[in-house]
């Protein structure tokens, strides 16, 4: 297990390096420069242009810029925005606290909804609840995140406001403090809608996966044996069935966590939240390469860590999986 962990860890580091390099290539080699961002349409004298180039190190060849970028990164310096010269570290810090809270509550809600819906519809297979659950989970897969976000705003913001149903109005400002989400005052209402929008799409997918995976496990002989031995239904469900059904679910949950940033971008745009997603989207549109790259490093590392955890957790959930690189694939 130890060697496998180390090996897998090294692989993740290589993946992060390669992905960051790819992003560097995408945003630095192709156009997009501080000069046009600052001057706009106005023509500037050559001296000023040269000065700006020198200031951002753009007069150096690309490979020098690349190595300098990594050097600064190891010193914890992500560089400065082309647009307003703000430190990318500050921009990252501002965006991260919003996004982290959004994604934390989103991922938690996702897990709760997926487990509840998936388990109940598998246990009570064919019941009314199961049918409603199936329609709900299939239906949600067709709804893009930004549409469900706008729909949520309409149903829990616009409509209650026009009808004066104040209790239904969840369209509240996003709380700015950390404890606001954890210790519910009134400000928790601002988190509910965005977090729910983040959670729903993949929650439906995971719930369906869990249901079908549980139903498949339940056909296995050892489940019949467990019931025949006289074990309680609860014990069979949670000890025998769930653990075996979890393996595909962990994969799907991991994939969904890696993709959750794409969901965050849309959610933050729809709800106008000042998170990393909306910052990255705006910076990419204005070709503010240092900001995009600085924030992307965090997102990429997060994805690599999730991948690593998913791979390692297979071994914990299923001892049958042999830990050598051949069997893991």
């Amino acid at each position: 297990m130890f060697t496998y962990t180390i090996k897998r860890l090294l692989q993740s580091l290589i993946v992060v390096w390669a992905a960051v390099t790819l992003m560097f290539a995408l945003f630095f080699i192709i156009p997009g420069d501080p000069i046009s961002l600052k001057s706009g349409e106005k023509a500037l004298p050559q001296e000023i242009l040269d000065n700006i180039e020198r200031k951002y190190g753009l007069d150096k060849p690309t490979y020098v810029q690349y190595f300098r970028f990594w050097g600064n990164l190891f010193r914890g310096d992500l560089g400065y925005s082309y647009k307003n010269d703000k430190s990318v570290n500050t921009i990252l810090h501002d965006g991260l606290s919003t996004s982290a809270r959004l994604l934390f509550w989103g991922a938690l809600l996702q897990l709760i909804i997926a487990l509840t819906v998936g388990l109940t519809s598998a246990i009570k297979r064919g019941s009314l609840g199961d049918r409603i659950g199936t329609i709900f989970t299939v239906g949600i897969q067709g709804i893009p995140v930004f549409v469900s976000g706008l729909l949520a705003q309409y149903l829990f913001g616009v409509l209650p406001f026009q009808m004066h149903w104040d209790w239904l109005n969840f369209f509240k400002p996003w709380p700015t403090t950390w404890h606001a989400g954890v210790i519910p005052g009134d400000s928790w209402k601002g988190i509910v809608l965005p977090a729910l929008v983040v959670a729903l799409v993949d929650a439906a997918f995971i719930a369906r996966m869990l249901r079908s995976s549980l139903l498949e496990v339940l056909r296995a002989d050892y489940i019949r044996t467990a019931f025949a031995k006289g074990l309680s239904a609860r014990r069979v469900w949670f000890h025998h069935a769930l653990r075996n059904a979890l393996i595909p679910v962990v994969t799907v949950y991991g994939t969904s966590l890696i993709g959750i940033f794409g969901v965050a971008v849309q959610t933050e745009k729809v709800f106008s939240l000042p998170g990393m997603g909306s910052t990255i989207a705006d910076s990419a549109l204005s070709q503010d390469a240092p900001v995009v790259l600085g924030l992307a490093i965090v997102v990429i590392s997060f994805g690599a860590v999730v991948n690593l955890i998913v791979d390692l957790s297979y071994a914990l959930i299923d001892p049958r999986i042999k830990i050598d690189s051949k069997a893991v694939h």
Partner: protein
Amino acid sequence: MSEIEQIPQSLSYWQDVRKRFFGNKISIVGLAMLVILIVAGIVGPFISGWKYDNLGPDILVGPGSNGHWLGTDDLGRDIFTRVTFGIRLSLTVAIVVTAISVFVGVTLGGIAGYFGGWIDTIISRFIDTWQVIPFVLIGFAIITVFGSSFWVIVAALVLTGWYSTTRLFRASVMQVKSLDYVEAARATGASTKRIILRHIGPNAIPPIIVVLAFSVAGAILSESVYAFLGVGFREPTPSLGVMISSSRNYLTDKPFVFFIPGSVLVLLTLSIVLIGDGLRDALDPKLRGVK
């Protein structure tokens, strides 16, 4: 003479698939929805009497007024024409993107899965790397540099979608490869080409069909996301994502401007997801005969 026993008619695999697909109410609903939307997409722009970029004097009028069946948007353009044109655009983009992604997926995934070894390692590690980059960033980079023309958007969508099909085909080829009949074919001296085309190929087709359906739905969604974020099609191109994006300001007063393109987009993807679901069940030989 003794009574002749009733022998149930024996069905071939594909006959059985067809029977099970059409016996499934949910997939029929999906198919019907899709057919209606496709017909609307084909004939809609011709019969509405308006052009999708015709600016008119009637701004934000509700459905049914002044000859606008579904009303007009903030620039006085006919929503029905724009929405039906949007269906056409979404489906065209999605089909082209899916065709290319599946081609890439089958080729790369097939090579990685069949040959294994260092080719497989390179392709797999590349997928690992690609996967951790958020898909919106790849699209952003490409579209901000090359503009938002049809083929650039197609390329961006292929680049965000190719790895999932590749990974899937790699896994399915690896699984089929180790089966006994492939071993048997190899033992009889069949060539690599023959094994791939005649033995592995036909068995890899059912998963490909399911993937086709889901990646069409996925491409429609991604295209609309790009358009919504401002990096896909732009005004005045009537993409459903563009329409939804510009409807945001009228959510309070004129919600129909959001609800019409929004529900068309949802129904379009939903119908394809439902068909894909039905196909997956119908094509699964393990579920054969299960009621």
